[in-house]
């Protein structure tokens, strides 16, 4: 561990490399996290199937390459396909559990995640899949620092998606309905908002975001059927840190998490990177609850 820290001192370019890689993966985390924030905030559902939706997006982009198309098309295609998948899932399962105890929906989406994992396993096999975007690599500082153009594109795309989403929620009618439903569904209904449709749309949008993120993942990294949970957990962490309904915060937290994870992996050893992520999760939650303890919520 000390050796790793020393290495950072000896080869400072590593710091830059780690930071860049971290930010770029963090941006993708953020996209999935937008969706989670939406679904959580609006429907009061913690969507455990988030990671699997991301993977599904990845597999769709991969499938396009099998058909000879550029996986870059995967971003819009996966988003559109996943929108309908999401709306479908909502219709069949989510709407029946959304207004129940949150734990019920947690479990239901967990069940869906197992189902999707297995379906992907049956359709595409258990192997690691990647798709070559065809974009090249930039080199900085005399070839020491590499920046894959794909990752930069993913980064830019993620930020853009976030911005669009924020404006959409603030300005559009559906956006307003989504916000109102999030805060008090019964009140939304008495004002004439079709909350069921709002829920379906919200879940669809979430799935579409995941699909886009997945397409970025398969080009910038790789996917296989069992890789969902870390994405789910990261989304969750990001949302907690940012706070529900704080989308700009989601971007910042996503980038921060990506960078922190990368540095932790480097310094502690990659084997502890996942442990680090989950310990960080617990620590964040503990800090959050301590802070809340001070600013206590109270009853009326």
């Amino acid at each position: 561990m000390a050796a790793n820290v020393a290495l950072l001192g000896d080869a400072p370019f590593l710091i830059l490399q780690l930071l860049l890689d971290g930010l770029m993966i963090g941006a993708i985390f953020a996209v999935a996290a937008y969706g989670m924030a939406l679904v959580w905030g609006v429907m009061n559902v913690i969507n455990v199937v988030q990671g699997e939706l991301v993977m599904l997006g990845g597999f769709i982009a991969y499938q396009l390459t099998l058909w000879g198309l550029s996986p870059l098309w995967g971003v819009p295609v996966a988003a559109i396909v996943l929108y309908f998948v999401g709306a479908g899932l909502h219709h069949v399962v989510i709407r029946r559990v959304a207004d129940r105890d949150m734990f019920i929906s947690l479990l239901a989406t967990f069940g869906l995640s197992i189902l999707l994992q297995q379906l992907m396993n049956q359709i595409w096999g258990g192997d690691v899949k990647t798709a070559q975007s065809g974009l090249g690599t930039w080199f900085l500082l005399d070839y020491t620092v590499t920046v894959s153009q794909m990752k930069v594109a993913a980064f830019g795309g993620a930020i853009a998606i976030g911005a669009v989403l924020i404006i959409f929620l603030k300005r559009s009618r559906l956006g307003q309905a989504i916000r109102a439903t999030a805060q008090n569904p019964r009140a939304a209904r008495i004002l004439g908002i079709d909350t069921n449709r709002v829920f379906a749309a919200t879940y669809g949008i979430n799935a579409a975001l995941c699909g886009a993120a997945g397409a970025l993942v398969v080009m910038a990294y790789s996917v296989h059927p069992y890789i969902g949970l870390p994405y789910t957990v990261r989304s969750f962490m990001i949302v907690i840190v940012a706070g529900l309904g704080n989308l700009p915060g989601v971007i910042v937290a996503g980038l921060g998490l990506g960078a922190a994870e990368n540095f932790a992996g480097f310094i502690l050893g990659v084997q502890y990177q996942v442990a680090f992520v989950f310990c960080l999760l617990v620590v964040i939650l503990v800090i959050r609850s301590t802070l809340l303890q001070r600013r206590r919520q109270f009853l009326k």
Partner: protein
Amino acid sequence: DAQAKVEGDTVYLGAAVSLTGKYTTAGEHTQRGYDLAVKTINDAGGITVGGNTYRLEVIYYDDESTPARGAQLAERLINQDGVDFMLGPYSSGLTKAIAPVTEQYGVPMVEANGASLQLFNKGYRYLFAVLSTTEQYLASAVALAAEIAEREGRDPATLKLAGAFENDPFSQDIRAGVIADAEKFGIQVVIDDQLPPELNDMAATLAKTKAVKPDILVVSGHSKGAALAVRQVEEMRVDVPMLAITHCDSADVIGKFGAASEYTLCASQWAPTLSYQDDVFGSAADYAATFEAEYGYAPPYQAAESSAAVIVFADAFERAGGFGKDAVRDALAATEMQTFYGNIRFDETGKNIAKPMVLYQIQDGAYVVVAPTKWAASEVRHPTPPWSER
């Protein structure tokens, strides 16, 4: 209870294989290896034991790639299904979980996918492995590096080795072997990373590699690790004179990454170009052809060794002349034969000591055996040129 072991003219073997979970792909290769051998043997008239002919059949369960499930299923196969002979699961971890069960019940198990050396220091009497154990996987790669260094007039002790190994029993065993080999030559280990099982990014390790500039980079993490290593080495333009990995054929790195996979060294249990043969499949090349005709892709070595395990069992049944568990066990212990997969002879711990590993290099888009010299089809290409020149 236990009547299912031999029903009429059918002998049942039991196997828990990974059809879901993280070992799905390899588990499928394993199952297909078993199935192909069983089918081929049965089609050729089955086995003759004590004057009668018998067909083979395998009872499968899915162990979901988890050892706890594997152990339970072994119990189930032995107790409820009455199986008296077991074929191994995929991976060292699963084998580790199942071996204690078969051992307790005195059920002989021939396994083809648990390479961990630790399986063979427990004094198990009913466990037999047709494959080479982990310490041999990358030994020839390390030796090769040392040899080349000496040839170039460099002291091997000046070499630097970087390693990244998945955190599972198999890869950790590989790691132990590599580190022991490095010590033997005085090679300095400069990076020794463990990769998490839900691996999807090894940028941190590779960035480190760029900084410390080792002479050899060794990666082991089943097919996932192989794919990731080849891909990210290219993407990050990591210049390292020698990249040695495991599982490149099962990960199909040539198909996935094309030219980027050139120069990569791969440890393999077996290659279709080897000159072994047997009565069931013919030569190694014949086996490859049969397999490809059946399943539509070239057999990875996981399939080949699984088929070999069935052949070994069949041979032992015939020599034992009956289906007593202990008679078959003793016959297995006395095995001395050649299969398309290689020579098989078990030492007293149950591992196969008659078959060496081979080392491939990817040259011009094909796997070419470069070590050991006996089977080498071509010279090793070394060093790997820097990316700026490729």
